[in-house]
């Protein structure tokens, strides 16, 4: 009797586990499906933008080759390099601005601290692209909308507002005890040294998070790039290039290459994430005893 009951509990658990795993498998499939579909389309040999079968009838690498060789109309390699330069520099600047502002607001007490935080909160409620035409005219007035300066203008656009989005990093810095800072200062550290030698190493997860978001922002942005690049095709970023591939004149020829481009642009982000994710775990583990 007793054994039977035990057995049935075990059976019930197995049954539940099976059900849960089936559900998870279905959800995982639904989630992965679009990604898988884009990857398969990027290897599809049939032309055109419409497919009647889920699996391509034939596979090819031509879509990728076309992206890098057929550059007279849509110069993908150039766009890729443009975007990479812009994203790397904006990422560095944004990370620096954002972490510095967060550190100041977390560790220092000054008169404008509260007003600044309130102002940032209110400004943060408005979407960034609301200001894009104004930003364009300001950049034009300074003379940054011509030639290679467009890259610089875009870097400014993407990193300029960084100090306003300090909330998450500041919240994280707040959890590091101030006692650690005091101990460092007693040992002769300056504020800058506390920031670089104490706070940042203890806050790896948030640094990584900041770097990732700061990189992805400019990497995928379309609106600002479109408004500022205008007719300067040599300054286009990948987002504009991919969008153009889907216009009615190009879609029939470029659709599969569009998918190939979509796969390619995910690579730098994936590398960055894989390289950085091991730091997600650490943080303040073992910093303060007792």
């Amino acid at each position, binding site marked *: 009797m007793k054994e039977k009951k035990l057995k049935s509990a075990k059976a019930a658990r197995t049954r539940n586990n099976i059900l849960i795993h089936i559900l998870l498998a279905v959800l995982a499939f639904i989630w992965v499906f679009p990604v898988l579909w884009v990857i398969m389309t990027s290897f599809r040999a049939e032309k055109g*933008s*419409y497919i009647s079968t889920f699996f391509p009838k034939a596979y090819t690498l031509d879509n990728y080759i076309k992206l890098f060789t057929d550059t007279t109309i849509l110069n993908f390699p150039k766009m890729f390099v443009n975007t990479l330069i812009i994203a790397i520099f904006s990422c560095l600047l944004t990370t620096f601005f954002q972490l510095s502002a967060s550190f100041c607001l977390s560790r220092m007490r000054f008169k404008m601290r509260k007003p600044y935080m309130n102002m940032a909160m209110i400004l943060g409620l408005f979407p960034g692209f609301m200001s894009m035409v104004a930003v364009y005219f300001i950049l034009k007035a300074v003379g940054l909308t011509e030639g*290679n300066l467009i890259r610089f203008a875009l870097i400014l656009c993407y990193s300029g507002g960084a100090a306003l989005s300090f909330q998450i990093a500041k919240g994280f810095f707040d959890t590091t005890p101030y006692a650690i800072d005091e101990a460092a200062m007693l040992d002769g550290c300056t504020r800058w040294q506390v920031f670089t030698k104490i706070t940042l190493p203890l806050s790896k997860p948030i640094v990584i998070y900041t770097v990732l978001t700061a990189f992805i922002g400019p990497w995928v942005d379309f609106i600002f790039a479109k408004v500022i690049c205008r007719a300067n095709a040599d300054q286009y970023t990948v987002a504009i290039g991919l969008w153009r591939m889907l216009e009615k004149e190009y879609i029939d020829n470029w659709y599969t290459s569009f998918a190939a481009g979509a796969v390619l642009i995910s690579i730098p982000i994936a590398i960055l994430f894989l390289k950085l994710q091991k730091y997600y775990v650490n943080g303040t583990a073992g910093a303060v005893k007792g």
Partner: protein
Amino acid sequence: MSKRPKRLLALLLIALLLLGVTGCGGGESGGTDGAEDIRLLVWAPSEDQAQASGEWLQTCCENFAAQHPEWNITFNYGVADEATSASTVAYDPEDSADVFMYANDNITVLTDAKALAKIGGKYADQIKSFTSEALVDSVSLDGYLYGVPYTTNTWYMFYDKSVFTEEDVKSLEAMLAKGKVAFPFTNSWYLPAFYVGNGCTLFGNANQEDLGVDFGGDNAVEVTDYLIDLVNNPNFVVDADGAGMAGLRDGSIHAIFTGSWDAPSIKEILGDNMGAAAPPTYTLNGETKQMLAYAGSKAIGVNAHSENMVAAVELAIYLGSAEAQKLHYDLRSTIPSNTELMTHEDIAADPVVIAQNDTFDRTSILQPTVSAMGNCWTPVENMGKAIRNGTTTHDNAAEQTRGMNEAMNSNGIS
């Protein structure tokens, strides 16, 4: 200490940024031969400038410069295709190209931004001398001419000659009896052809905004009823997301409706069997009605803020001239509109040119350019989708059609 390298690194990064920035800046070349130095910024689609398609724009601009020794012209080129150039120019006309290309349905966007120069006097006469009246009208507003039209912009039918005869393609019913026909039913650039064909009007078909849209009468309801039956015809395919082209490729579809931009792909698929014709007639309650496509034009516009107005206007006229249009046709198969070129033997024998011109002259209406036209797209698209999905039926066709008409006459706010 390790803080110094880091500071150095930061400095280095800033220096790099600044370096990357100061690399450019043009020098003015001094004219020694008495010619006036001028700069012209020209925007055109990227294919017009690509080496692979023969650098039409550069060739034409150099020819133009050679014809005008009185100017020492430096050309700068930018990329803006006809469909989107208007919005790019409109938000900053002062810093836009002197000469650019636009699709005429955007003309009000440009005139509202005061970006287009009015062309008058001898230049207007020159343009009118090689352009048909309908085409001149397509880029005129309130009696002023706003550009040099260089091609028509409309859609028509491409079909497989091994399936349909030239007699068949005159009637949609005859075609549906013999083969599969795909039509972009849920695209509001195409669907109104049936309504307009049965006497529905948009702004009096003459750009009179106060007349509004008349898509709600009994004649419109008849068309809705006809379309419901059409969608249920097993030989009729709703073309969306490239389904028509894919069907043509695998042989399951024998005719599609599209424009000259798809002609090279279709030529590749059908080869010598490619036929092109104006939209066919359809039979509504026993009567034969002609489908009427929206037609427009693409034109070369001159920026009202250009500093070298005379040169810019003359360049625009040159780019629309017979010589430039012929080159455009040879290099990129852009359908010419110049009346002098129509007698040219290559051009006169091209089925796509014939179909496009026939459509423009006979089976189309000028697509309204008034800004209220902006309210007309979504309701028609929704009607197409509702019929396809079966939510519009013979029972509620009248009500749904009137709903569409109401939406087309309203901007959704007031």
